């Protein structure tokens, strides 16, 4: 479960103000809103990458506001992927995985295994997103935070990756909070939150 109560955070001159939301365990929540609404800041504050200036973050029903990211047992996938360019694709996928066989299996399911012999710098934006997704999932997180993870994928590939992610979501039962601009992606979500200028507006 992801729960935030009256969450405030700062990112430069931008401020996230009094945001509250609940995504029940195993559900898929979606955050929408215009550019600069605070969607990424919200995900980063839930992940512990950015400090909350006020409010509480609860994961699995436990307050984690003061915990560092490595103790929150979650995965985050940025729009740009942020693959480690000094490592191979395979090393990226297995970076934080305790179970190497599971990491290989997750990589195979998303097609990242086909990219193993490619340099990270030579991957397309869509391929980076696939590898980044596999890397986050290979650690078997309870919570997955997705910041427009399909934006660089073409329609056909986006449908395949999304389908595979939904299948894994059903099998593993992790909780998802996804930022998206795509209203079609937001349609089927269990929880939907709309942000504008750092506040929840719907």
């Amino acid at each position: 479960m992801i729960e935030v109560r009256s969450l405030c955070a700062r990112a430069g001159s931008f401020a996230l103000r009094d945001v509250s939301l609940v995504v029940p365990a195993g559900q898929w929540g979606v955050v929408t809103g215009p550019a600069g609404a605070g969607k990424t800041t919200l995900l980063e504050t839930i992940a512990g990458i950015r400090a909350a200036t006020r409010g509480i973050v609860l994961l699995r029903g436990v307050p984690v506001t003061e915990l560092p990211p490595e103790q929150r047992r979650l995965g985050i996938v940025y729009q740009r992927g942020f693959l480690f360019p000094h490592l191979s694709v395979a090393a990226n996928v297995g970076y934080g995985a305790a179970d190497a066989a599971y990491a290989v299996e997750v990589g195979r399911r998303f097609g990242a295994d086909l990219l193993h012999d490619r340099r990270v710098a030579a991957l397309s934006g869509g391929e980076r997103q696939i590898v980044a997704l596999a890397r986050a999932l290979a650690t078997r997180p309870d919570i997955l935070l997705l910041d427009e993870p399909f934006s660089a994928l073409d329609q056909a590939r986006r449908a395949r990756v999304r389908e595979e992610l939904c299948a894994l979501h059903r099998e593993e039962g992790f909780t998802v909070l996804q930022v998206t601009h795509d209203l079609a992606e937001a349609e089927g979500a269990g929880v939907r939150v709309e942000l504008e200028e750092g506040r929840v507006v719907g």
Partner: protein
Amino acid sequence: MNTTPERGHYRMATTLVVAASFVLLVLLGAPVLLLVVRGGGAGLALLGSDAELRRSLALTGLTGTAATVLTVVLGTPLAWLLARGRMRGAGVVSAVLDLPLLIPHPVAGIALLLAFGRGSPAGGALEQLGLAITGSPVGIALAMLFVSAPLYVSGAREAIARVDERYESVARTLGDSAFRAAWRVTRPLAGRGLLAAAVVMWARAVSEFGAIVVLTYNPKVVSVLSYDRFTSYGLGAVLPVAAVLVILALVPLVVLRSLKGHIAYGEP
């Protein structure tokens, strides 16, 4: 379309820029070129026959390397803290780091003498450990570190700041502590920049004179040896030694140039 007067102004501006650049390049390059032309051949021959010069070069290289290695070990974590804005009083720390670059180097030597010389508590303790700073390679390395470490920390801070912090953030969500993420991700991504900063520091360290000569005249590093031969025997005697130093200074310059072309390392 350009009119004739505009074209004339453009030509004049171009001529002024080229002339100004030429004057500066001549001011910087001509003395060095003249030194190499006049003393280069004799200097290289001297390397084979002058044992004192070889000892001096070895001492300079070793003390410069020791100072650089120590600074890399102590200064990289500090550069990381400064680059990531995770240090309270970063402004004061930066000012302290810049100070050695601003004060005259003999004054730096005097300050070191005051802090670590025989009469000081720290100097007494160092002497007990066999690490006297006057008249010893330890003092030479300390003087080199004092005057050139700020160059490493500043370069390392820039190299680390060029690596997007979100690489570290992702590594932390994958289970790394802050230190482990910096070691496994930021260090290799900033590696070439860190190496370039170390080369700059080393080059500055081995060319130091003012601070070293206050602490340690003997054994002589090459800058002190050059000065000693110039004051004792005149220009003719120092020319070959000075030319050798200029030729050797090209090594870090070439390394640095080759690194600069490859410093960018990350996602396009």
